[in-house]
């Protein structure tokens, strides 16, 4: 008699542990504390009331709207077998795939030479984790490749190296930006009112001077990357650059567009490159199609305007070869510019000799852009820092 309920309890406990594990496989961020709390939730909600258990676990395990929308499917797949099991369990495969690639990473990492097809990932891990060697090779490689136009690099190995450098560049950018702002902190004029206020705590002796020009905050970055066919030679590099940016700046966000606009911040933040690729592939169905910048920016304005603040720096990466209506593009750009601090347009074409802005859409866009800069090689990306720090 006594044994039955405890058996039941343990079996439910282990089912719950299994559920948490499955949630983790599906990219829910669940810590140990939450795992323990799932047991409390189950005890509080009672496992006999499915709906209540669902709500309880949902509140506990979800972290954002995306999780919120996926949760029901996951819950049903686990607790109500025979429903939709197959679709959900696809993802754990990506997680198991991870192991061999990491092993490959440590094996070929020292060789420092992009080997066969999977060599992309090792180079990556090296840049992320094994800092000393990775950075050094990066520095010399940087000089070698800094001036090369992205489209001239046809060799696979060079291409990957370049992508890695672009990402590293973005990561370093943050450090340098912040240092510059610290230097600015001193100097300028003394703010008398605040200095008097601060002197109160020292009995009227102005021990603490307050300056007018105080610590300036790094801008919020927002990247909109063109991944249409005309950009296909460049888009990989820029996606890696975007990845570096969103990982270095917590407040950054990134979008990709071709005929429609998709948010890719979360996908880029994935630490596992294979998973990142899978999720990018999932949201990118129909990539490299035609371009409709105007419509895409309209979608941005409709759905994601809240991301624009007076501190946001919007960077649009595109060649401006557009099949949409120029007037619409101009209107949307004007709209974005009103809400943000600065609108920067990066065009890989601008670096080519003899290139003139002639397309109707680019001409329409020009009056609404604060900075139009080339982005065809690493040097031009590096030059961006000045734009960012001059804000």
């Amino acid at each position, binding site marked *: 008699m006594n044994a039955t309920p405890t058996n039941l309890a343990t079996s439910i406990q282990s089912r719950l542990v299994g559920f948490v594990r499955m949630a983790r496989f599906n990219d829910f961020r669940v810590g140990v*504390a939450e795992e323990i709390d799932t047991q409390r939730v189950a005890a509080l909600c009672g496992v006999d009331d499915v709906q209540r258990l669902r709500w309880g676990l949902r*509140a506990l395990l*979800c972290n*954002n709207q995306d999780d919120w929308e996926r949760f029901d499917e996951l819950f049903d797949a686990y607790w109500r077998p025979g429903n939709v099991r197959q679709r959900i369990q696809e993802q754990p495969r990506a997680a198991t795939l991870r192991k061999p690639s990491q092993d490959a990473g440590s094996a070929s990492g020292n060789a420092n030479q992009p080997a066969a097809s999977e060599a992309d990932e090792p180079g990556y891990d090296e840049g992320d984790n094994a800092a000393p060697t990775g950075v050094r090779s990066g520095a010399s490689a940087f000089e070698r490749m800094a001036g090369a136009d992205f489209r001239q690099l046809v060799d696979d190995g060079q291409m990957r190296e370049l992508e890695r450098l672009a990402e590293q560049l973005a990561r370093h950018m943050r450090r340098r930006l912040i240092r510059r702002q610290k230097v600015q902190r001193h100097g300028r004029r003394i703010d008398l009112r605040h200095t008097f206020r601060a002197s109160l*705590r020292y009995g009227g002796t102005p021990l603490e001077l307050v300056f007018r020009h105080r610590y300036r905050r790094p801008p*919020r970055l927002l990247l909109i990357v063109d991944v249409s066919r005309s950009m296909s030679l460049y888009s990989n590099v820029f996606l890696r650059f975007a990845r570096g940016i969103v990982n270095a700046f917590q*407040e950054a966000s990134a979008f990709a567009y071709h005929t429609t606009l998709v948010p890719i911040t979360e996908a880029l933040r994935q630490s596992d490159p294979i998973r990142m690729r899978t999720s990018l592939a999932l949201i990118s169905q129909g990539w490299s199609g035609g371009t409709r910048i105007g419509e895409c920016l309209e979608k941005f304005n409709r759905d994601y305007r809240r*991301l624009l603040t007076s501190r946001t720096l919007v960077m649009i990466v595109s060649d401006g070869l557009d099949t949409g209506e120029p007037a619409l593009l101009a209107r949307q750009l004007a709209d974005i510019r009103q809400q943000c601090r600065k609108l920067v347009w990066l065009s890989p074409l601008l670096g080519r000799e003899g290139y003139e802005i002639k397309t109707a859409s680019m001409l329409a866009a020009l009056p609404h852009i604060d900075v139009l800069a080339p982005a065809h090689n690493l040097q031009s990306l590096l030059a961006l820092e000045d734009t960012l720090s001059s804000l």
Partner: protein
Amino acid sequence: MTEHNRVGELQQSLAGAGYIADRALAATLLLFTELQRPLLLEGDAGVGKTEVARVLSDVFACPLIRLQCYEGLDVNSSVYEWNYQHQLLAIKLLERGEVSPDSAEQHIFSQKYLLERPLLRAITQPDSPVLLIDEIDRADEEFEAYLLELLSDFQISVPELGTITARSRPYVILTSNGTRELSDALRRRCLYHYLEYPDFDKELSIIHARVPEIGPQLARQVVAFVQELRKQDLRKKPGVAEALDWVAALLNLRVTGLAEDPQAVVDSLVCLLKTREDRAAIHEPLLERLIAQAV
């Protein structure tokens, strides 16, 4: 069984305080009070995120302490500050008497001269208050990190005084509008609930609960109209708060039905549409169609 009833009970007491919550939200709130984890509420503007905190404080009959976040929010305005003027006065007064420097120092750095800001106030209450941290996404990353520490230990250290530990654990509600991605650490620590725009029945009962004097016919029309309006391609969709404003405006204009007085509807649209583009998007024929559908 009893669990089931408790969700219903909470739902009813929320309704009694003027907040119509669906069962899922009531279940989350029940869990929230039992687990004592902070609750992160997200959702579009005007779906009633802030209201949740207000109504909980009503239901629990405890004070509501609100911290509105903004860029540049710092410890001085969110946690504590010394009352410098009073301290200076005290020093002047102490100079006359014969008090040893040590005890003078102890005196001027005592609780008496400490200005409590919302976070400190929240943890020094004898009974658990509801602490509403509104629009946390507007605050800086640094503040978020500080908050994280506070939410895990529920203690605040004031260098001159020592560590102040919470006398009671506040019910912490955070709201976010998504202007910035919150850190994973903070999200992980919180329970999460996403509030959607209410469906027809729910919005109808909200309007009846908030504006009891409205006639059933007008209420039905208003809700149908607003629900349809949300489906339009608008820059700023009207929330529940806007709908309530609109009801108030219509009642003020003595409107009994949308179809009877289309001009009044046009005049009062300012309550629902908050940008020039949106106002232009709802042109005459569309408006007529919307009214016809609602009636």
